[in-house]
């Protein structure tokens, strides 16, 4: 069953209402591959609040649930697929649509909610990465990757589980375009009506949840800024080089 939001989005022509474009600086869409891969309504509400509270980014609260061939996919460059076990296989047309999505600048977060390694979803995710990025495969992100410093200084751990030292990624044109988390970064956000977390974080508790939240926010910021933080390292050298060249001095190396 699709969410009310999705129904609303499709009921009226997107071009007439402007609903095709997200309303803020950032928006999430969920990839709909069946009932086993659907997050509960409002799953990301706390995540949006976390982003809004900590950063200058204004997220769009609406979350669309979209099938791989949905044209609206291209209006949501951050796509999440959260499953506990392998979903159905993708058709050729669906694979091609997701390839175009990645090539168009989209980021796909594959979230494993099972809390286990080497499960069926993990194998499926590895195969999908190979299909979408021929020759590419999921590999653990290096600790120096800009994703770990895109906002918070993150160690890469954190989530509902602690089974993966660092998220894995497959690259398109130097960009970590497909991210894979085995620690369930989607499961850390739901809260009860009383404001308490729905799912416990094991074994690290709330500290682990906070690490997970920071890591997720870093993923969001990475999708919005790319390797900006790498630039930040080099920019002082670049500026100094320009100053020296302008002053008629020799070149400088970072």
């Amino acid at each position: 069953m699709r969410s009310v939001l999705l129904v609303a989005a499709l009921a009226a022509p997107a071009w007439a209402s402007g609903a095709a474009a997200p309303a803020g600086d950032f928006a999430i869409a969920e990839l709909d591959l069946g009932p086993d891969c659907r997050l509960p309504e409002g799953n990301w509400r706390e995540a949006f609040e976390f982003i809004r509270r900590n950063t200058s980014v204004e997220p769009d609260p609406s979350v669309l649930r979209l099938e791989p061939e949905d044209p609206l996919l291209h209006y949501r460059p951050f796509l999440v697929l959260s499953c506990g076990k392998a979903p159905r296989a993708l058709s050729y047309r669906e694979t091609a649509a997701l390839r175009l999505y990645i090539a168009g600048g989209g980021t796909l977060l594959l979230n494993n909610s099972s809390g286990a390694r080497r499960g069926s979803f993990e194998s499926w995710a590895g195969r999908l990465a190979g299909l979408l990025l021929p020759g590419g495969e999921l590999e653990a992100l290096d600790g120096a990757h800009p994703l770990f410093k895109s906002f918070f200084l993150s160690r890469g751990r954190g989530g509902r589980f602690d089974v993966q030292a660092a998220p894995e990624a497959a690259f398109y044109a130097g960009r970590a375009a497909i991210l894979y988390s085995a620690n369930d970064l989607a499961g850390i956000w739901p809260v009860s009506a009383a404001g308490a977390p729905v799912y416990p974080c094991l074994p690290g508790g709330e500290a682990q949840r906070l690490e997970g939240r920071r890591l997720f926010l870093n993923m969001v910021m990475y999708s919005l800024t790319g390797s900006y933080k790498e630039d930040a390292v080099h920019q002082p050298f670049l500026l100094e080089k320009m100053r020296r060249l302008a002053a008629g001095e020799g070149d400088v190396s970072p």
Partner: protein
Amino acid sequence: MTLELGSGWGLLLAAALLPVAALRLFRGRSMPSASVILRVASFLLLAAALADPVISRVERRPSPSRVAFLVDAGAAMAGPCHEGAAETRRVCAGAWARRAAASAGEKVSASVFYFPGPLLPAQEDPPASFPRDRDLGAALAWLSSEGGGPWDRVFVLTSGHDLRPPPVGTCGSGVTLLSVGPPSAGRRLSAPRVSAPPFAYLHMPFRVFAESRLENAPPGAPASLEILSSDGKLISSAAARTDAYGVFGATFPLRTDVLGSAAYRARARAGGLTAVSGFGVQAVREKLRVLYLSGPPSFDYAALRGHLKSDPGVDLVSFVILRNPEDAAGVAEKDLSLIPFPVHELFIRDLRNFDVLILHAFDLRRFAIGGPYLQAVESFVAGGGGLLVIGGPQAFGSGGYAGLGPFQALLPAEVSAAPDYSEEAFSVEPARHPAAAPEAFAGTGAPQLGGLNLLGGPAEGARLIYGYRAASGAAGALAAERGHGKGRVVVMASPRTWMLKSAGGGRYSAFWEKMLSFLDGTLGLERVSLEADENYPPRLRLRVLGPDYRPLDRDAASISASVSGPGGARAPDFYFRGGGIYEAEVPPPFGGRQTVSARVAVDGRAAGSPSLSFSPAGPSSYVPPDLRALEEMARPRGWSVARMEESGGAALEKLMPPPSSTEVRTWSAAPGRSPWLLAVLMLLLAAEFAVRRRAGRD
């Protein structure tokens, strides 16, 4: 008298063998001796015909020497030929050369040429203008390729100023350089000669060396050199002292921040005299330097930053506001990967080092409200920079831009004083503008954009690049541009062009490449632009773009131009120099303000009709010839130097080449080719036949 055999060796051998063959053929045969004699005589006659002898009488007669007078037609020959003279140095030299050619008499065959013509290295008539570039080597090479045999002597009449000689060893020694005009008697300060690079990189220092000479000056005399901008503003100066030859010079580090030609003047002062000359440098871009300041991170920032980063021709420095002061991370600063936004350094110190500044959904009220920062942006654009302002919820009306006086005045679209950001969908209407890429929004896969600042129409003096029509019915400028000073400002109302990238098909690249090319000055508005170099000799330059807004790579333009002023109307002759550039010398006279108008058509279709007014500099007062330069030119090439004024009459005769003689054939005969020979042969054969018949033989 001489005897020559005209036949080849084969026929000569055949001729020699014929009598021998005749003797062997008739030996031992019983026939009348008269018949034998007649037969041998026939064979001998045939042999003589085969040998083709030519008998001639040859006499040696004196022949005139070939002499050429090459008159320098360059800029330095446009001044008076001596102090107070009304005639130009070129007229004096041409008249002298014609007199010399006429007075040389029959002993000399003399011709007068001018070099270089606008299209030819040398020509018989003086060119209409005074070209700045003269290549003596090319003129001499052209002369030697002319028919009529080699030249025995070439006289080059020149002032010697800025003349480009041929490489040593490439021309013969029969050249005499004749200086035109009396040499200097008193002190004279030569116009500074400047060695400047043909091009310089934007924002980077380049060095020029300026040198002048104070004639008859004692060594160590104080002097100075200055570099001024084209509008007379002093850029740099240096004190110097004359050397033993009166020469003094200095090196200047310069820098230009404007793309294209940059004009300067060098001024020398010494001995109470002042001399000025102009020079220019073409400023080119090493890399496009982009300073990209973004408000909140967004998909749009990620897409545009990625586009710029992927271009190896772009040096990108970007800052994005990850967190506002009111955002509470609730964590220690050490856990955050954030650095302060260096607003002061960027706006006050570093901005001039960039070519393009992008403000993307940037809240100026928060980060650059200070007057000096906005003033720095205005100065940046006025100095030649490109400013791109992209909309968003913190920009334009929603960012209070209407209240930022100096900044708002830059914007090429009308900005509301009230918040104007809307999430509504809109359609795009590309205008006829070189920066517009209609293909980005065409076709079935075109995305439906949504989210923009509802700007009004283009501001006064601005041009529309794209219009928008929102779902609510509002319409206005989605993108517009306007020049400011030497730079350009472009506004883009929507922060959602990333959707073009998501849609694929090269839409995003098509959109931004044109926009950025326009912004950095690479893509001009007009297909034809006209420039004038006011320095003497004045020159006109047309830059012509094809229908695709790329420089013409072939001579496909037809140009009809006219220069009008106090001296009347003249037609400059433009010639193609490659890369879409056409140049022409301005025909004299030069006094007063001149107006140039041109009509340019490319492949038969009108491309533009630019016009401009300028005040070209005329030739200065009398400048003595540069004898030193002439001697330095002549010495390694084995040439000689003389003064034109001292080379008339007997002196010229001494300079002329010695007379030569040639062999002339006064009479000749070729009996072997005569029809009489055939007749005699037939007669001999008939007589021999008659003798034999009479003797009773067959």
